[in-house]
């Protein structure tokens, strides 16, 4: 036991010696939280649009003022003719062009109908549909202002909406669970796989293997410091998201921590598994990135909702653990549900852990080949 503790101490020293990596491990989640919280947004804000007004009358002026004073749009260009549309869109200066046909106001009053055309830059589909939707909504609002007597029975159905779990429609609810999962993958799987392959690459593994420590002790000793580090990191993320966004843990914190530890254990065992199959650190890094980090970002429903993906992806994503863990955290943190709702995912995570431990034990070589 004393020997083992000595070994754990040695591993801790390894980590603390590389002070910069230690800091970066805590810096990455902090940077991500701040980026997602304050910088990166999917909202529409101050989008530049161009207006091609072929009519120049009172109504087109009113409507374009209404569009540009909404806070969503800035009129950056007044276009003169159709050929300018392509030129401006190609320069990426504007997101869309609003076109008022010739004689817009006259037609609206005399014929009761006028056509407004929106040309949006489809190379950014999300932006394009947002811009189109917003301008259409503003115009619909303008339309209802045109009706002389408001509230004279024109509105027949009114919907009362309740946004569940996230009433203020914040983006944080999506990415905080995602950030936690990414960090766990980075710290646990990547660091463990690197540290074990390093010993192999340098040949110091030999030294460890001929020591009286058992292979199990070596592995467990290597893993313990990262286990502690990961929990500290996860707690930091939870505290940060609480202070920065006021995002509380709705469900039981103990359950959340237990699930976190399970996932950490799983990532660690995956890290060991990777290290048993790779010979150099570069290989280990590559396998972890492609096999673990990529699915974490893409196939976990963290940025891109799984439901929207093509059919095969939903099945494919089931082969990778991150999606289960994200479901678990979302349920506990945001919906506040208990184990009753996440027992299936928990069992699957336990299964993944067991498989990778079994695989690592089978593959761990104590002799030179």
């Amino acid at each position: 036991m004393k020997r083992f503790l000595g070994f754990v101490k040695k591993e801790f020293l390894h980590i603390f010696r590389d002070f910069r990596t230690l800091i970066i491990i805590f810096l990455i989640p902090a940077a991500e939280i701040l980026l997602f919280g304050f910088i990166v947004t999917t909202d529409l804000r101050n989008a530049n649009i161009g207006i091609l007004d072929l009519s120049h009358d009172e109504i087109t002026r009113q409507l374009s003022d209404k569009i540009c004073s909404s806070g969503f749009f800035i009129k950056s260009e007044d276009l003169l003719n159709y050929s300018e549309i392509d030129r401006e869109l190609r320069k990426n200066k504007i997101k869309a062009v609003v076109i008022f046909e010739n004689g817009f106001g006259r037609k609206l009053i005399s014929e009761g109908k006028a056509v407004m055309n929106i040309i949006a830059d489809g190379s950014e589909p999300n932006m394009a549909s947002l811009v189109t939707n917003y301008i259409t909504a503003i115009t619909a609002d303008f339309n209802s202002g045109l009706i002389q007597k408001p509230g004279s029975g024109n509105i027949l159905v009114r919907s009362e909406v309740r946004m569940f779990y996230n009433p203020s429609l914040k983006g944080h609810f999506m990415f905080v669970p995602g950030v936690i999962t990414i960090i766990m993958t980075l710290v646990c799987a990547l660091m463990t796989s690197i540290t074990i392959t390093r010993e192999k690459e340098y040949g110091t593994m030999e030294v460890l293997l001929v020591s009286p420590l058992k292979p199990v002790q070596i592995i467990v000793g290597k893993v313990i410091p990262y286990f502690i580090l990961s929990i500290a990191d996860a707690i930091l993320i939870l505290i940060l998201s609480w202070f920065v966004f006021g995002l509380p843990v709705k469900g039981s914190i103990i359950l959340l921590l237990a699930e976190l530890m399970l996932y950490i254990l799983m990532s660690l065992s995956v890290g060991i598994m990777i290290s048993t199959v790779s010979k150099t650190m570069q290989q280990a890094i590559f396998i972890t990135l492609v096999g673990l980090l990529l699915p974490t970002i893409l196939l976990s429903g963290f940025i891109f909702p799984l439901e929207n993906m093509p059919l095969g992806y939903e099945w494919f994503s089931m082969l990778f653990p991150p999606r289960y863990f994200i479901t678990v955290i979302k349920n506990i943190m945001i919906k506040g549900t208990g184990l009753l709702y996440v027992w299936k995912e928990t069992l699957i995570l336990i299964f993944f852990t067991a498989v990778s431990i079994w695989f690592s034990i089978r593959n761990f070589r104590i002799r030179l080949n």
Partner: protein
Amino acid sequence: MRTILYLIRKEFLQIFRDRFIGKAIFGVPIVQMLLLVPAVTFEIKNVKLCIIDRDMTTESRELVSRLEGSTFFKVRFSTFSEPEGNDLLHRGKCDMILQIPSGFGKEQGLAQPGKIFVSINAINAVNAQLSLAYLTGVIRDYNLKVLTDNTDPGFLQLPPQIEVTNRYWYNELLNYKFYMLPGVLGILILAIGFVLAGLNLVKEKESGTIEQINVTPVKKYQFITAKMVPFLIIGLVDLSIGLIIGRLAFGIPFEGSIALLFLCSAIFMTALLGLALLISTFSGTQQQYMFSAFLFIIVFVLMSGVFTPADSMPVWAQKINLINPAAYIMRINRMVMLKGSTFHDLGRDIISLTMVAIVFTTLAVNRYRKTA
């Protein structure tokens, strides 16, 4: 010059000596393109709906059948109990509950509007907003229909209406693959360049082989150039593979000039490799480099506007993007590939990106020390 060529040859030999990495360099882009491009979509379809129709009149059924008719919604459940609906929402079986209270049909004839109650799972705020927008659209159509049905055309004139039509240029059907592919190409060469080039230099440091170069008369700039060129070539080869896959597998249009795209990518790679080598001069071990590089990659990619609109970021963040090579390449790739932008359209971006490349590379050469 000959020295540089020899050094470059040595680098290539060194890279491809590791068979695994040699395969990964060209295998990863293929897998990444095929896997990533179709996966990444914000397009929403099949929003799972739970209907609680307490009214059961012709009016309420008409509204429900309208929702059923749209491709956007899928009516999965019909129930009469609110707790059951909430439980379905809780378990994630449905995304939206639509509750039509009794008296909905009756109230419509009267002066006051009929009410419906909507509950949406809003954990994904974007999805929730879009679903609501679609629902509002369906209701608006329904309103309009009821209005026109009940109005005698000769008797009451409809109020003046502005009709909005819209078109999406460059990507008529809003195909997300066209949007993602240029972005994924950028991420691809970013990841390959950043990870491999930096690790390569640090590995030499870590295993001590860098000493052997340091004692030769090789100049600093020669050394750095030789470290950069192989990865520049690998990056451009990967770009070509990616473009071919994009063409064959996804039928992506290519409006602009290929030469312009390669020119911009080469400048981008130079900037990137310069930064990678700069970071690696600060790092002692591969692990240290990897984590520092991660920090940069995460910040660069998230701020680049590949997944989210860069223009919606605060102004000061957009200023930071001036030194973010990824932000330039994402924009340039999309503009050249989808919109057919020319050198003239991109002029300013190309100049700034070139400056960024020069600064990073110069710093890397300066920081590199031949002496211990």
